[in-house]
């Protein structure tokens, strides 16, 4: 393809910028302080000479304008949701409403100390309560903790709840079953909750192999950890049988709620047999991904798990005021200091309030519609490993392109030239050469049509000029990064020129 065939992007001049340390020179500073209104002190005396620090070697010395330009320039090398479609499957890169940023910064909210006495923090407590109530209705569960800081943190929390419950029943059991399509955090979290993991295969429809599950679901199994819809975007349509099977053998059904964006107002995990699930507020509920967090991973449970929730929980006092309750003898304890990623919770609540029941259902419909439209548009060009109907995302594979030596990672890089943020590469692991695409509801038909066009073009390029794809990206300020080199002799920090050799 020639440059002109790329409809969505061109190239434009972009500023270079070294490391902040390379801008430093002695005596510059970007911040000053008010004069001290108490007597100055002799630090060496107060701290003891042995405790005194003289200087922070290598620390930057730059002015305010240099800080501003430095980070402004860096920002322009990034691609965000505000830039365009951000196709990472499983990540639900939807639009982050601007009003959420405003409310999270309100005075009284942004500057509230976590140890404020309850009487001075009723607003924060009511936000926590309101969010809990909304989320419980959305997922159809009975109780909830907002403490976990992200999805994986929620997974660990949820499994600790499972374990605490089973322990209280007399036997924590030993294993957690995890479908082979699951995200890597699932087994890692299970391990942290003290469980061994066992992988369950998928059938030819891309859903849990029921027979295998039946065999594996022994009485040493604490829980099945299911993602639903799963990472192929397919709803586990045998969910009733699965739940029945797990429950009948004394196990619990854990659901990874990463893909809840497919279900809002349509289907509730609590209604299809789930005992415990975590949500990703930074996915389904629009809180910004921040370049890799912060997120929030609340965990919702059925009533019987409620006594085990982390402390503290928000309770209503007789006078109608809210307070934290710490005295919960069966609790698994804390998974995080204070009360969770509050600023993220504020944004999620703002999003839910803005949408309301109708809006949430509508956005799920749009998310699924977008994904299906995309699937339809790409079916001819890319191999679809599973024919089952999909919801919010779809997973292709690079089988056809691989014949020409072009792999999913190459297609992703070439997609950058076409003005998109690529999809998730090589996940789920059960699809070799996966292209996992989740457009979310935030993409317009225009943007999707451009995407289909781009991926169609790349499919042609893979045949007609594979080198173009293999060498991509061509239009970025740096070429393909040498990741092998980075890992072989890791350079993980800057050092002053003299020391750099060390």
């Amino acid at each position, binding site marked *: 393809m020639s440059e002109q065939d790329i409809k969505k992007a061109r190239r434009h001049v972009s500023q270079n910028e070294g490391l902040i340390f390379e801008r430093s020179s002695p005596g510059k500073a970007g911040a000053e302080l008010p004069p001290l209104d108490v007597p100055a002190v002799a630090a060496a005396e107060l701290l003891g000479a042995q405790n005194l620090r003289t200087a922070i070697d290598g620390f930057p010395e730059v002015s305010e304008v240099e800080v501003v330009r430095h980070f402004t320039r860096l920002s322009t090398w*990034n691609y965000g949701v505000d830039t365009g479609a951000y196709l990472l499957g499983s990540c639900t890169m939807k639009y982050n409403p601007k009003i959420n940023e405003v409310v999270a910064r309100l005075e009284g909210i942004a500057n509230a100390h976590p140890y404020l006495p309850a009487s001075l923090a009723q607003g924060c407590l009511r936000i926590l309560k309101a969010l809990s109530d909304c989320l419980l209705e959305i997922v159809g569960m009975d109780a909830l903790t907002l403490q976990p800081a992200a999805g994986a943190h929620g997974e660990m929390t949820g499994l600790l709840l499972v374990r605490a419950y089973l322990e209280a029943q007399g036997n924590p059991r030993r294993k957690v079953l995890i479908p082979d399509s699951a995200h890597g955090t699932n087994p890692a979290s299970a391990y942290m909750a003290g469980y061994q993991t066992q992988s369950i295969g998928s059938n030819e429809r891309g859903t849990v192999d029921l027979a295998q599950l039946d065999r594996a679901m022994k009485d040493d199994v604490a829980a099945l950890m299911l993602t639903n819809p799963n990472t192929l975007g397919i709803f586990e349509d045998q969910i009733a049988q699965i739940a029945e099977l797990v429950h009948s053998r004394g196990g619990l059904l854990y659901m990874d709620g990463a893909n809840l964006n497919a279900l809002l107002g349509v289907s509730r995990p609590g209604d299809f047999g789930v005992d415990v699930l975590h949500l990703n507020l930074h996915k389904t509920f629009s809180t910004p991904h921040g370049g890799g967090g912060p997120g929030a991973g609340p965990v919702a449970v059925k009533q019987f798990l409620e006594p085990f929730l982390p402390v503290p929980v928000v309770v209503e006092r007789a006078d109608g005021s809210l307070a934290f309750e710490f005295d919960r003898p069966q609790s698994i304890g804390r998974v995080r200091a204070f009360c969770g990623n509050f600023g993220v919770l504020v944004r999620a609540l703002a999003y839910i309030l803005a949408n309301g029941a109708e809006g949430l259902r509508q956005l799920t419909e749009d998310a699924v519609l977008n994904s299906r439209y995309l699937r339809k548009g790409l079916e001819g060009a890319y191999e679809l490993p599973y024919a089952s109907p999909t919801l919010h995302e779809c997973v292709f594979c690079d089988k056809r392109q691989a014949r020409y030596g072009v792999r999913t990672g190459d297609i992703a890089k070439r997609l950058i030239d076409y003005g998109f943020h690529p999809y998730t590469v090589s996940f789920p692991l059960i699809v070799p050469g996966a292209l996992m695409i989740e457009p979310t509801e935030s993409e317009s038909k225009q943007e999707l049509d451009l995407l289909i066009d781009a991926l169609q073009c790349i499919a042609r390029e893979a045949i007609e000029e594979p080198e173009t794809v293999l060498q991509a990206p061509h239009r970025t300020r740096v070429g393909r990064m040498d990741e092998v080199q980075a890992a072989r002799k890791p350079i993980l920090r800057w050092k002053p020129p003299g020391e750099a050799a060390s």
Partner: protein
Amino acid sequence: MRYLPKSPEERRDMLRAIGCDSIEQLFSSIPLEARLGRPLRLEPGKSEPEVLAYFRERAAENARDYTCFLGAGAYDHFCPAVVDALISRSEFYTAYTPYQPEISQGTLQAVFEYQTLICQLTGMDVANASLYDGSSALPEAVMMAVRATGRRRAAVARSVHPEYREVLATYLRHQEIKITELPFAESGQLVPEALAAAASDDLAAVVIQSPNFFGVIEEVAAAAEVAHAAGALLIVMVAEPLALGIVRPPLEADIVAGEAQSLGVPLSFGGPYVGFLAAREKYVRSMPGRLVGQTTDAAGERGFCLTLATREQHIRREKATSNICTNQALCALMVTIFLSTYGKQGLRELALQNLAKSHYAAARFRERGARLRFSGPFFNEMVVRGVGGGAGAAEKLQAHKIVGGLELGRFYPELAGDVLVCVTETASRGKIDELVRIYTGP
């Protein structure tokens, strides 16, 4: 709905294009009995002015315009306006983990700078891209020590933040890692004899915090000596990293971890904050969390990418060094900008002002007959003996628009009635005087 970029007609067109008759048909793969046959019981969607009004009402129910003497792991410092202006660049905050380095060099270079700054601040060789918060950084550090030593016991000072220790207990409960608690002395520091007694050859790590929960600076070198002699690692936790602007970094430690909220992240009722973890080079492959490394492209241009991913869950699954995936990147960016802006001199001065203010407060307390619980050197927090407990003081403080210190009885029954008072540069002399006056009675 204002967030959705579709007209009714476009929806119809798209449905037609995929051969669907109705929206409901999109969900046909969900068994009927798993579907919700009714609308969600939520309020109708709110317009933006209503959303704003809702949160303004909530904000008004909280303390506003108070001078706050709470610290205890969450600190209020002057944060330059550039921090919020720059993290509000949507290319930063609406991006995700930099899986595609060619369009993520902004995040990647910033994280590389963050890693460097944390190393410089702590005196360590390597630092990761962030953890959830200070409390979860503690179990991550201990598990790292367990991996590095093959031993399964940690000796943890009781003067480590109580909530951090609660989190540690939760994480370790099912991992067969034992915890031995180490008491504190009159100085507020670790009792050396207790440490010596705990230092047996099954010990993976000694954990202290400095400044500790009482604001007291620990004797790191001494602790390191004992730990190392026993073949254990020394983990130093830091909940108030601003101290490192003036306090000697824990160079003898093997792992320095903690909470960086203090460096530019809003209090925000406890989160999002940002856990950091730094260590000696040799432990890099047992570190949890993301790492950004320097590399080049084919043309030899410098660039950055995620690296050493083989430690991580998406590759190693249950054998990963941690389950962490999404971390606290944006908060780490706040810290990076905050530290870059204050810089070498500024951070030192900021730390010095904290030192001066807290010692001014201490002097005022002493003048008015109150005593500090501990004799060890402190940074910007101190435990004042016996001034808490009364509801009277709390009410008076509120009347003066002051939020007092933290009553310690909740965490340390033996310190009931004592108050942990934090005095940062944001407290004016006048407010400090008021605080002392109210606490020390008429």
